[in-house]
C-alpha cells in the first residue's frame, strides 16, 4: 500500500461494509439478474453495494473502478469486459489496498485475489458437445454465428466450440457451410448472417450454432420467414444465457437448447465471499487457475444444458424465470407439470 493513500485511510473507517460491483454491461437481461441477485444477497448480509456498468467499453470500466476506489469500497467485484485490460484496474485497487474478485470472467496478468465463474470456454465446449450428440452419427452441415469479434468473450466461446469441433471438421464429418461474426451481438446481424447462409445453401444445413440467445433469436427469425414454423422445428438451434425469450422458444420447440448458468449460486456465493473478504477473512478455494501471472484461487461452478425436457428442474426450479412467463404462449393442457 503506497503511503500516499493514507490520507484517505483514516476516512475509510466506516462500520458498514461497502462492496463495489463493476459490470461490463447491463445491456443484456442476464446481467440485470446478476446485479439483482448479488445486491439482494449482499444487503441480506448487511453490506452496501455500489453498482457500475461500462457499456462494454474498457476505458469506461476503468473510470468506473476508479470511481469505486474513490468511494472507498472495501472490496471490488469486477466483471471485466476485457480480462486483459482490467489488469490495470486490479493494480489501482491494490494500491488503494482493496481486494479484487473476478466475477464470471478471469482477469489476466494480474494478482487478482479470487475468481468465481462459469468457465466461458467450457460453455463453448458444452454447446459444441450437445450439437455433436444431437447430430446423427456426429456428422452434418452446420452454420456458425459468432458473437462480436471485438468482444474477448466471443473469442472464448468460439475457442471452446473449436476445441470440440475442430477434429470433426478436420475429418470432414462436420461441415461448416457458413460462419460469420455478428457485430455488437446484434440479433439483426444474426438474422442477416442466417439469411446469407440460406440464400447460398437453402435448406441443406441441420444446425445453427449461435453465440448467444440474442443472435440465435435473429437466426430463428430468418428461419421462420423462410421455412415457416415446422421447418424451424426440424433444425437444431443452439444458444446460450437462458434468456426468457429463449426459454419460451425452447418450450415452443423453436430453439433446441440454451446454456443455463445458475446465476443465483454464482451471485450469492460472490456476495458472501466478497463480504468475508471485506471483513478481512481468508478465503480457501480448492481450484486455481493460472492467469498468465499467478495461480488465482478459483471457484468454478457448473453450467447446465437446458432443453425442453429439463426446463422445469433447472430454470424454473431455481426460479430463474417464472413458470407462467416461460409457458405463457403454451396452452395450459400442453404444459408439463411443475415439480411440487
Amino acid at each position, binding site marked *: 500500500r503506497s503511503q500516499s493513500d493514507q490520507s484517505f485511510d483514516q476516512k475509510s473507517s466506516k462500520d458498514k461494509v461497502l462492496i463495489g460491483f463493476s459490470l461490463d454491461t*447491463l*445491456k*443484456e*437481461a442476464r*446481467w*440485470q439478474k446478476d446485479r439483482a441477485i448479488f445486491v439482494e444477497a449482499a444487503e441480506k448480509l448487511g453490506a452496501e453495494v455500489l453498482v457500475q456498468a461500462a457499456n462494454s467499453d474498457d476505458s469506461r470500466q476503468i473510470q468506473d473502478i476508479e470511481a469505486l476506489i474513490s468511494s472507498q469500497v472495501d472490496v471490488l467485484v469486477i466483471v471485466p469486459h476485457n480480462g486483459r485490460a482490467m489488469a490495470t484496474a486490479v493494480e489501482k485497487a491494490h494500491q488503494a489496498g482493496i481486494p479484487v474478485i473476478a466475477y464470471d470472467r478471469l482477469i489476466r496478468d494480474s494478482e487478482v485475489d479470487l475468481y468465481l465463474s462459469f468457465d466461458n470456454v467450457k460453455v463453448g465446449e458444452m454447446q459444441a458437445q450437445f450439437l455433436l450428440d444431437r447430430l446423427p452419427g456426429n456428422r452434418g452441415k452446420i452454420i456458425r454465428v459468432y458473437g462480436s*469479434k*471485438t468482444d474477448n468473450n466471443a473469442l472464448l466461446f468460439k475457442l471452446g466450440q473449436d476445441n470440440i469441433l475442430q477434429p470433426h471438421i478436420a475429418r470432414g464429418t462436420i461441415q461448416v457451410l*457458413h*460462419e*460469420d*461474426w455478428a*457485430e*455488437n*451481438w*446484434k*440479433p*439483426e446481424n444474426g*438474422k*442477416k*448472417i442466417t*439469411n*446469407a447462409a*440460406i*440464400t*447460398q445453401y437453402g435448406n441443406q444445413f441441420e444446425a445453427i450454432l449461435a453465440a448467444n*440467445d*440474442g443472435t440465435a*433469436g*435473429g437466426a*430463428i*427469425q430468418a428461419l*421462420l*420467414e423462410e421455412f415457416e*414454423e415446422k421447418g424451424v422445428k426440424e433444425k437444431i438451434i443452439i444458444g446460450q444465457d437462458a*434468456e*426468457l*425469450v429463449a426459454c*419460451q422458444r425452447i418450450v*415452443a420447440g*423453436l430453439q433446441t437448447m440454451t446454456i443455463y448458468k445458475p446465476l443465483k449460486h454464482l451471485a450469492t456465493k460472490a456476495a458472501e465471499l466478497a463480504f468475508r473478504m471485506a471483513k478481512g477473512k481468508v478465503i480457501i478455494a480448492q481450484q486455481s487457475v493460472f492467469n498468465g501471472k499467478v495461480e488465482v484461487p478459483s471457484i468454478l461452478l457448473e453450467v447446465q444444458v437446458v432443453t425442453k425436457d429439463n426446463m422445469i428442474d433447472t430454470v424454473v426450479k431455481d426460479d430463474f424465470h417464472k413458470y407462467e412467463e416461460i409457458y*405463457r*404462449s403454451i396452452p395450459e393442457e400442453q404444459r408439463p407439470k411443475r415439480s411440487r
Partner: protein
Amino acid sequence: MQNKLSVRDFSMAISLALIWLFFALLNPNFLTSRNISILVIELSITAILALGMLLVILPGHIDLSVGSGVGLFGGVASVLVFHHNWPSPLAMTVSLVIAITVWYLMGTLVIKQKIPAFIITLGGLLIFKGVFWLVIKNSTVPVTHGTERNFYSLLTTYYIPPLIGYILGALVIGSIAYTYCFTRKRRQSYGFNVESAEVTFMKLFVGGQFIFLFILVTNQYRGIPLPVVILGAVALFVYILTQHTPFGRHLYAIGGNEKAALISGIPVDRVVIHAFAIMGCIVAITGFMQTAYSGASTTTVGDLMELDAIAACVIGGTSLKGGRGSVIGVIFGALIMASLLNGMTLMAISPEIKFIARGGVLTLAVWMDVKLNTD
C-alpha cells in the same frame, strides 16, 4: 436542377452498377430473387429514415437522434404489444403520436430557443437511448407472442401476392405515364418547349421495364415485400412535398438563404418545426420496421442508424449546408449502402474489412459525384 439531378443520378447509377457487378461476379447468389428481395427489405428501412433526414437537412439542420429514436419507439410499441397485450395497430399509433410530439418539441427548441439542431439532437440521442433501455428494461421484447403473426410482425415479413403485385405495378407505370404525358401536353399548350416525343417514350419505356423486371424478380421469390411498398409511399409523399408544395420549396429556400426566405415572407419557424414533426413520424415508422425486422426490441436496435441515414443523404448529393438535395438521390444513396452491406454479409467478409469497404465506397461515391458535377 432537373438536369443537374440526372447527372448526379447518373454518377450514382455507375457506382451502383459497379458494386452490383462486383458482387454478382464474386458470388452468383447475389442476384438470386431471394437475395434481391432481402436486399430491398434492408434498403427500405435505411431509405425511409434517410428520406426523413432529407427534410431536416434541406433547411440546413441535422438530426443525430434518429438512431436511438428508432430503437425507442420500436421498443415502446413492442412493450405495449408484448407486455400489455395491446392490439399492435393501436400500440403503434400511440408510439407514433408520441414520436411526432417529441420531434415537434425538438424542432421548437431548435427554432425558438436558437439551440443548434446538432446539440438538441445529440442530447436527444443520449436521452432517447436512456429512456429506451428503461422502457424495455434492457431485456428482449418480441414484437409478437411466440410465432403468431400480428400487424407489427408482418411489417417486414409480408409479401404482396404475385398477381396483386403485377396489378400494382401496372397501376404505377400507368399513372406515371399518364401524368408524364399530361404535363407534357399542358406544357406545350403553355408554349414551353418540351423534349421530343421519342425521348419521352424511351424514358417511360425504360422506367416501366425496370419496375416490371423488379416485380418479376421479386415474384419469383414471394412477391413484392411490404417494406418496398411502404418505401414507395413515403418516397412519393416526400417527393411531392419537396417538389410540388410551397412547404417543400420553402425548405429549399430556407436552406439556400434563410434571410432571403424571411424577407420573402416565408414562415421559417413553422416550416422547420413541421419538418421536424414529419421526421418524428418517419422515425417511428422506421422504428417499427427495424424492430419487426430483428423480430424483437433489444438494446442495440437502431444503433448508429443516424450515420447511415446521413450518409445516404450525402452520397445522394444532399448538401449538409442545406438548400440542395433530392428524393431520387437519397434513395440511390441508400441503395448503394444497402447493396454493399448485403453483398459483404453474403460473402461473410470479416467485420474489419466490412468497415474499410464501407468507408472506402462512401468516400468514392461522393468523390465521383463531386467530379461529375463540377465538370
